[in-house]
């Protein structure tokens, strides 16, 4: 599609629509009355966005990468949206999770935030999604920064809205704001340095110009970008903002951002490491082996260990997320096609399990008003469907066969053993055993304890409403389905990784 827009067919405009639809829909939401209208609108928009992503994914899988010139300005001067398998997968993930979490959210949200903020809440949610989609779709380094900030700013607001229920949300949002801003600043400094070195902001163009360039400026730019994105993706030990933000945000927000925002940041680091910079450059090799890989491993263990001792289930899941990010970093750090493919698979799979888990906790919040593990005692008797959803997605997190978690573990192990890094394979399974402990603890509470007969959780409790159960179970079903049929996840991720490395010639 060179030059000005030649075709006005809607299909050709899909890359732009992917971002424009939610972007335009968001301000409209503010004008809506409180009640169910904003919720229905946001859900509808999420579903439409999901449909666009699926169409894009199909197109890319069948016909190869798509390049879209925004406003008809040719790259490298204009902004290019570039969709290949790697980001088509991320786009589908973000919009897919939104398409299930948004419909789920209503009952949970009105019980946790100020009712008057409802239109604002859904507007922020849509903007957050827009930002995340934008980061994934753009082929322009500075544009990544812009969308990153769009999603982050709206997330700060969304986390802070949990403040009505729990004042600590304000403090968490503020922390997140400070850390997130530092991360964004580092990132933009890095992009600036690269711009100084190459004179371009288009990622593909930057890649060409960076060939053979190993100057101080490039190295500094690289370092700033890795640290900046490291903050955004909660790379240990830059994760300190995450547990509190996830724990105190409204439940629906936790489910959405836990499944998407760190994943998008992981995608960004993959994109920069493997398609902007050269994998064989000495500074990148050093970063992979001495920074990303070790920090991933330490994160896997440190965060899992902390998770074992949490009594707040949402905080426990948040620490687990940090650990799971460690797995992805480990896959990336291996620096092989298999490793990156495993990281991408885990990126998708982990989103599926964490979204389902946070949704289950949200249902418990709604009915019992607490996310403390005491509230989970005897849950299998009080809220059997919610408990079953938590158990299945929890088993998925552990990596039990016939769930997506198992596929992730399998691919990660394959990358480790196949890449002469058997030690990494054993570390992966060892840290999975910590997941057995922290998830097993909650499952045991739910299944083998009687519901409390006194204390704040003793009141009779009904099962979560159907409108929450259905989306939750759709994700649980996805956990099992993609655990048995990996054509859409593992196979596409492998092709995506090959494309990133230029092995399959997909770039």
């Amino acid at each position, binding site marked *: 599609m060179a030059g000005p827009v030649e075709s006005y067919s809607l299909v050709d405009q899909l890359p732009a629509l992917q971002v424009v639809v939610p972007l335009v829909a968001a301000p409209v939401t503010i004008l809506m009355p409180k009640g169910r209208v904003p919720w229905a609108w946001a859900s509808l928009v999420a579903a439409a966005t999901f449909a666009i992503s699926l169409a894009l994914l199909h197109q890319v899988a069948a016909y190869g990468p798509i390049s879209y010139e925004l406003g008809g300005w040719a790259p490298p001067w204009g902004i290019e949206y570039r969709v290949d398998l790697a980001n088509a997968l991320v786009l589908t993930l973000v919009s897919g999770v939104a398409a299930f979490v948004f419909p789920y959210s209503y009952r949970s949200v009105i019980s946790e935030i100020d009712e008057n903020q409802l239109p604002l809440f859904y507007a922020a949610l849509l903007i957050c999604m827009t930002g995340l989609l934008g980061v994934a779709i753009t082929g322009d380094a500075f544009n990544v920064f812009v969308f990153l900030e769009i999603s982050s700013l709206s997330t700060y607001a969304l986390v802070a809205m949990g403040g009505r229920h729990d004042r600590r949300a304000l403090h968490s949002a503020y922390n997140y704001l400070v850390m997130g801003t530092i991360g964004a600043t580092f990132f933009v400094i890095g992009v600036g340095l690269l711009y100084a070195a190459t004179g371009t902001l288009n990622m593909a163009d930057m890649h060409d110009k960076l060939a053979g360039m190993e100057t101080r400026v490039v190295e500094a730019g690289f370092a700033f970008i890795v640290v900046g994105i490291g903050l955004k993706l909660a790379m240990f030990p830059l994760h300190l903002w995450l547990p509190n933000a996830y724990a105190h945000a409204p439940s629906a927000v936790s489910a959405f951002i836990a499944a998407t925002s760190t994943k998008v940041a992981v995608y960004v680091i993959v994109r920069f490491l493997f398609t902007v910079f050269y994998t064989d450059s000495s500074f990148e090799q050093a970063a992979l082996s001495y920074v990303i890989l070790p920090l991933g491993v330490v994160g896997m263990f440190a965060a899992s260990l902390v998770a074992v001792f949490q009594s707040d289930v949402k905080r426990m899941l948040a620490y687990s997320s940090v650990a799971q990010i460690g797995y992805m970093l480990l896959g990336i750090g291996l620096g092989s096609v298999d490793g990156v493919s495993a990281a991408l698979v885990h990126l998708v799979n982990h989103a599926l399990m964490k979204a389902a888990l946070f949704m289950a906790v949200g249902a418990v919040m709604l009915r019992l008003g607490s996310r403390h593990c005491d509230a989970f005692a005897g849950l299998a008797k009080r809220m059997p469907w919610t408990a079953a959803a938590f158990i299945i997605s929890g*088993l998925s997190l*552990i*990596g*039990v*066969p*016939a769930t997506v978690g198992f*596929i992730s*573990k*399998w*691919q990660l*192990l*394959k990358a*480790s*053993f*196949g890449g002469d890094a*058997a030690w990494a*394979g*054993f570390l*992966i*399974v*060892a840290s*999975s*055993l910590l997941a*057995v402990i922290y998830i*097993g603890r909650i499952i*045991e509470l739910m*299944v*083998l304890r009687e519901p409390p007969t006194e204390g704040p959780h003793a009141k009779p409790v009904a099962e979560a409403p159907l409108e929450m159960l259905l989306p939750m179970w759709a994700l649980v079903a996805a956990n099992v389905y993609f655990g*048995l*049929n*990996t*054509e859409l996840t*593992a*196979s596409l991720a*492998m092709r995506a990784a090959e494309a990133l490395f230029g092995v399959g010639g997909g770039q």
Partner: protein
Amino acid sequence: MSPELALPAAFLVPLMGLFGIWAGAKVSDNVREAATLITGGSLFLIVLGLFTAVGAGARPEWEAFEVIEGLPLAFRIEPLGALFALIASGLWIVNSLYSIGYMRGNEEKHQTRFYMSFAVAIASAIGVAYSANLLTLFIFYEILTLSTFPLVTHKGDDKARNGGRIYLGVLMGTSIGLLLPAIVWTYAVAGTTDFTLGGILAGKVDEAGPVLPLLLALYAFGIGKAALMPAHPWLPNAMVAPTPVSAFLHAVAVVKAGVFSVLKIVVYIFGIDLLAETGASDLLAWIAGGSILLASAIAMTQDNLKARLAYSTVSQLAYVTLGAMLATQMGVMGGAQQIAMHALGKMTLFMCAGAVYTAAHKSNISEMAGLGRVMPVTFGLFFIGACSIIGLPPLGGAWPKFFLMLGSADAGQTALIFILMISSVLNVIYLLPIPIRAFYMAPDGRDGANETGEGRALIQWHAMKEAPLFCILPPTLTAAGCLVLFFYGGALYDFLLPIIGGA
């Protein structure tokens, strides 16, 4: 039914049984139990059909679907798996009959959940038996662990919770921590995980290096269900479960799935020739030998009957591991036969222990003095089962010991023959006193057993206090099986011959 159709049916039937049990429970308990028994009966017929087909030389296959590229969920029946499936499904019927008597006799709760878990567990045991590659085996292995967890924690009290925690902790810990990396490592090295006669690793790994013994050790300990010391604690701790569950764990499915997997992996992944040439399994053969003696020694110290039987199982399972690690044809033959023979013998013992508990509410051996006089059938059956475990002819248990000794001799490990002999003596010491006390020692005078007066009669016919028929009939069947199998040892040998490369 043709073998190709029967293979998927072997999974479909327990699945339908699952719904039958659930739906039947809404009507009445009798309908629910009927659903269990009908499922068990039809499953047994299907598995028997497959068994005979395999005996005639067929190797039925079924590829369900591809999980990861190049790795399908696939099944292929070979003699070892056909035998294990036959034992599991046959004993499931016996166990179900027994469960009905036991669970009703002891008025246990949550019986529907109990029978449903059994149906899932048996389906996964069949899945392990028929698996065509390591991925399929692993998937069903883990489902078996999870589906038996509600059974182990059935009572729901603190003890059951603790037992369940250890059960799940050890089994999941070993399988995820050791078995899974072993499988993926195998896949990374060999490029396949298909069970192939002669193994898939020959020529793929540095045969002198440490990889082969390390990999073998990962499998041997990673298959926690085989309870090779020190991966055994889950087994004694799982005794908190109702007796039918113990029988199921010890004889029908769980531990048998473990040792079966060890044997299958040694035969079809490593290949006994590769192990014999490289000597990679020598150390593990000694560990298995150590496990045999140590577990027997611990068994002697246990007063709780079920605990004693549990340690006896740990010891007897190590026989199978030993047979595999000897890496000789006769060793493998002995291990394979031990799976069948031990299943029948230990099933009998556990069901007798449960019958004693149901009728007399006794679980400690020291309290059982004189009890045989009022429960002669139960203790008579116990005696037969014990003799089979010890390995006395004319009971089936004699054959595996015989082949294992032959295998040790073939491997040039004379010392292991002595270990086997010592172990048999230990078996006599910890098993036979139980029926002897029950028949010949006078009751201690504080409880019901002597209220019948006439302390001198060996059997007090007028004061019989046997367990209900449902608790007596099943061990009678398995005890008879022990006897019958002694005379069919040759047929079993011929059936298993293909796995050791014979005609």
